[in-house]
């Protein structure tokens, strides 16, 4: 068993050609440790989302390799990537996380249903209980508040017990109370269930929930910090002139 849940090795991601060419990731190497809550920070346009997408097999890299566990994603077909996403990866986007036609509980079990895997009912119950959405399971996404929607998305990411969860500014659209609830849950998932989480954020408070922070700028890793607190993060951000 490897202690690295996922890693990027010399990953370059280029968008467009000629004049519109943008290097979103520039020969980046980074590793995310198993059972750790990593925050990814950096200014807008620094390549945070691109990194998430490439790590999660949603997008292909221009150069370099991405590994989930020991699996090199570049060797996988679209079907194998799809399978990998639903079985080994969980997702939380900033918004529009839920399929509007499905109820909360159907959204939560969607990856399992797609994989044809049986739902572990006691795990499901404990996840929705912890996230405080147990009484909202029959509701459609439009009938849920923003915070509830994000917690349902978090439940979906957790319920298939993925190797790791990628979260791209999951609390970006939430008020501070809803944001704190969600982050506390992510924190406890790491602590109580050794869940690996990689979360993009530009909020120092949010980053304070993590074990480690990776700082990006212009598609490169420029710094990192272990055991952050919001104050330390703010200091570091200042020194990085964000």
């Amino acid at each position, binding site marked *: 068993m490897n202690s690295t849940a996922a890693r990027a090795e010399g990953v370059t991601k280029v968008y467009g050609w000629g004049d519109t060419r943008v290097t979103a990731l520039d020969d980046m190497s980074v590793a995310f440790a198993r059972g750790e809550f990593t925050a990814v920070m950096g200014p807008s346009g620094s390549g945070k989302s691109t990194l998430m997408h490439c790590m999660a097999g949603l997008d292909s890299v221009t150069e370099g390799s991405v590994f989930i566990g020991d699996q090199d994603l570049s060797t996988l077909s679209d079907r194998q990537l799809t399978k990998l996403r639903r079985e080994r990866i969980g997702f939380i986007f900033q918004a*529009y996380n839920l399929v509007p036609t*499905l109820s909360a509980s159907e959204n939560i079990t*969607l990856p399992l249903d797609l994989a044809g895997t049986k739902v572990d009912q006691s795990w499901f119950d404990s996840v929705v209980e912890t996230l405080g959405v147990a009484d909202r399971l029959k509701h459609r996404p439009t009938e849920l508040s923003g915070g509830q929607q994000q917690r349902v998305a978090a439940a979906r990411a957790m319920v298939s017990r993925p190797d790791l969860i990628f979260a791209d500014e999951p609390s970006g659209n939430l008020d501070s109370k809803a944001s704190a609830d969600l982050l506390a849950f992510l924190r406890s998932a790491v602590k109580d269930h050794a869940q690996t989480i990689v979360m993009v954020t530009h909020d120092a408070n949010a980053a304070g929930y993590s074990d480690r922070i990776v700082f990006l700028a212009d598609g490169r890793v420029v710094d990192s910090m272990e055991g952050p607190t919001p104050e330390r993060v703010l200091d570091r951000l200042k020194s990085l002139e964000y």
Partner: protein
Amino acid sequence: MLRVSLKGVWAHKVRLVLTALAIILGVGLISGVYVYTDTIGKAFDGIFADAYSGIDIAIGTESAFSFGEGTYLDEADFALIDDVPGVEEAYPYLQGIGVTVLDAEGEVLSSGPGPPTFVSSLSDLEGSAYDDTGGFTIAEGAYPVGSGQVAFDRGVADLGGFEVGDRVTVISDLVGRLDLELAGIAVFGEGGGLGGTKWVFFDLPTAQSVLQRPGQLSGGAVQVTPGAQIDDVVAGIQAVLPEHATVVSGQDAAEEEAAEIQAALSFFTIFLSVFGWVALFVGSFLIYNTFRIVVSQRTRELALLRALGAGARQIRGIVLLEAVTIGLIGAVLGLGFGIMLAFGLQLILPAVGIELPTATLSIKPRTVIVGLAAGTLITFFSALIPARRASKVSVMAALREDAAGPTRGGFLRRALVGAVILVLGLGGLFFGLFGDTGSGPSPIVYVGVGVGVIFLAVFVLSPLAAGPVTNLLGTVLERFTGTSGRLARRNAMRSPRRTAATAAAVTISITLVALASTLTGSIRGTLDEVLANNVDAEVVVLPAGQFGDPSAAFAPEVAERMEGMDLVADLTRIGISWGLLTVETPTGTLTDEILITGAEPNLAGFIPPDGFRGSLDPGPGEVVIEAAIADDYEIALGDSLVIEFEQSGERPFTLVGIAEGPAWAGIVAVPATDLISATGRDQHSQVYVQAVEGVTPDELKAAAEPILADFPNVAVQTFEDAQSEAEAQLNGLLNFILALLALAVVIGMLGVTNTMALAVFERTREIGLLRAVGLDRRTTRRMVRAEASIVSVFGALMGIGLGIFFGWALIKALEDLGFAVFVIPWLPSSASVAGVLGSLLFWLLATGILGILFAVYPAWRAARLKVIEAIAHL
């Protein structure tokens, strides 16, 4: 503004193509039918102009009968023409039908369904005033002379491979087998045929004997002396001929005959173009729905335009202009398609044995105008409601997040409005079918309007049913397909109005399909019941290959030979002729042209009635009538009525019996002797035969066939044969109608394609999300196809329901005509293609599968979306 519209059209090419396709197909069918029938009409005009080109005055006869064999002139009367001042020469002829030509193997010579074979007198006019007429002349060999010679037209000669001098066999319905020498081959006018008709020529006395018209003529042609006034001569001839003779100038005759053909063709044109209009009607739902979705997708863009200062009218204009552009493009391409279609028909029909005259394609201004107007206007009107909606988009919608969401509410109002419309439609339908429309518009109008209004009601109501029904269908599907089925079900349910509008296009075409199936199923059921339970005979002898002419007949020798067979216990001969039945009722005089049966006393032993009053064996001057007809005419036992025969005029009869039951449906029976004396014909249209104990129908048939071998114009049928023949005819009819409806079905399904393509576009981000959390490409495709299938089946369910209902109403209304049984043909009636096509379950299944097929493209698009771009969308 035009620029915005045109850009809108171009930016959505798929939508453009699909919407235009509906127009192209509909306009194509309509204009194709016009071009084709106009072309045939032009060809016939030419033929008649040729035929009468050398004739100054044409003499014929008229008849009060639509279906009879026509009336005749006596030779003695015709001879009087010669003495009319101004007549140079009068040339008589006799024409009729009732012969069958055999090929070298002794089989009936046939090139498939078509008009019957005509018999005509033909003599050599060389040296007379007529040697230059445009009619038939012998091109090869000589004119037939005497009872041993015959001439064929080129078409018959070619079909049978006959050459001048060959021995040929012609069967006359009246005088039986004729072994003849082929004296010559005739051509029409410059050398062609007469519109694909088949002709058999004799000299006049022989024609009179073959047609059993001794001393009689159909008419003639007159040449006037140079300088004579044609109108004066016409009047002079009319004065010496009996009243039923018609005397007109050759030119008028050509125009009249051409007009008659045009009238017949216009019926054909209307019949065929109805299917084109149906296709356009279905297409209008597709267009309506497309623009509805597009407008809701573009709410933000439109609101932005409003914010920038565009007025409501301008917004409406943009949408309508876009619609008209698409409509016009579709209509122009549709015209082109129609012309190609007409051209194709000219090539294909002869290949399948349907011979019609050809000419260069006739594209009349009417065709172009109707085609362009239909395509453009239908698109315009279909886009009207969406355009109005677009113009009501508020400026605020540009700023709001989820402005495109469906407007809810109005459930009760919709239900109420729908119910009221439904009641109105049902009222119209039932009044037209069962009510007394009196002197107002014809029942057809009420029925047509009623059906249209019922459709409208169903479309108002269907969004209410869309949710629950698609939910149910989807739940079934989910059982088999799991998550993709669930997603599909939820998608189909998310906008009931859109689902209903998409399904509506499918509904209309499937309604017509189901109606055709239900009617043929019910006719089949009626026939089965009549044939299986109500006829007490082992076999029936019928004219062969007469394509539904009930008065077709054969010679008495057939029955005589059957009677002589050891296996035959008893038989009854039935003669059938058209007659005009006239009854004085308290409310006025009723007259109808109906079939009169000449019955032998033992008839009731072969077709036992369910019950009867009075007698079943009419004596001279007596008649027995089926109960339903007696009811219609309000006549009772002992009443008198008048039947007019074409050949002998009016004869009084007394009603002595009223019979009930399906076997007697439509029968008006007089004694055989009366019918023979009234028509001057001793011939039979049916002979029912009972076998002796222990002989099966098939054994009797096998024994009878060799005995009747030299009567190829009659067929011996067991009742199984009769059933399968009736089945074959019904199936042919059903296939024909289904082939014409196929276009409407296709357009309905294109509507599904369009809606799905637009939905995939709308749900780009959602599909991206699904793909991100683990929906693979295959399942994505399956999800889209499953939704299409659910929507299609929903449409088909409504269509089948409506079709069954309309079928039931029609059968009820036609009960008097003998439609005794109402059958809902859920299952195939036989293992044949037509049997399967006639089954409603097949269509339910087929639309489900078609839904999948027609969603292949949108499904492919959905699966091809790049996950990352889809997530980034919006």
